């Protein structure tokens, strides 16, 4: 893929991501918001593909778009909110929120230091492909073995916690 094609694909994906994120937080109907978030996740997966992170793109589609978003949609339909579509989506303090968002974006732009990141070292080509599943698996099960196990503990705690919190107290 040429440089120009890659860049134009990136700018398309970035523009659609930002647009769908804005639409997601401004739609009045929560189900519409979820569908825009789905578009956002799929386009971010495309950005991961452009960055050479194929495994991360697959996990993004499977876990985020496949599992987490379906979970949210399931909850929305389970709760069946009739009043949400009537009122305004934002509270009365929305100008303050927009100011906070703009301030954060301006701060991130200001704090972005190009000298922070060293220029790309000339790694030997075709020996290290950072996105390959083999190198990720090797690092995950050797260098990051302890954080990997701790992640499984976090997921276990989340399962138990969700059941405990959501369980009905007085089951007949």
């Amino acid at each position, binding site marked *: *893929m040429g440089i120009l094609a890659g860049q134009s694909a990136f700018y398309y994906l970035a523009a659609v991501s930002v647009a769908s*994120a804005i639409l997601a937080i401004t739609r009045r109907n929560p189900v519409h*918001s979820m569908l825009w978030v789905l578009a*956002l996740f799929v386009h971010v997966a495309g*950005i991961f593909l452009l960055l050479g992170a194929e495994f991360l793109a697959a996990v*993004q589609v499977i876990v985020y778009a496949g599992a987490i978003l379906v979970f949210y949609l399931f909850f929305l339909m389970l709760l069946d909110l009739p009043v*949400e579509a009537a009122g305004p989506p934002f509270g009365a303090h929305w100008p303050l929120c927009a100011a906070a968002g703009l301030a954060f974006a301006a701060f991130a732009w200001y704090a972005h230091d*190009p000298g922070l990141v060293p220029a790309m070292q000339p790694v030997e080509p075709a020996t290290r492909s950072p996105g390959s599943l083999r190198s990720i698996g090797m690092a995950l099960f050797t*260098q990051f073995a302890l954080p990997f196990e701790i992640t499984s503990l976090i997921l276990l705690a989340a399962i138990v916690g969700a059941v405990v919190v959501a369980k009905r107290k007085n089951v007949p």
Partner: protein
Amino acid sequence: MVPSVPLGACLGLSAILFAIGLVGFLGRRNIILMLVSIEIMLNAVNVSFAAFSSHLQDTRGQILALFVIAVAAAEAAVGLGLVLALSRNRPGISVADLTELKY
């Protein structure tokens, strides 16, 4: 594969997505949409991780992004469990219904 995407553009996209998620989290009144805004923010951070991983030719950024995704899944499970428990005791799931500690 030569990364054809400039790092600064990726970081800018990440900052913009994070700011959008921040506005959504602070501004929306529906608790489920606040949780979704947190997911948007976590995804923005993942874009940053992937950009640095691609730029530095280092796998570790992608692994940290994988951990972020796992923690996001755990957060979704616990957060939605809390919302379910909340919706049994309250008429709705708007943050305007949660004012017991306010006065």
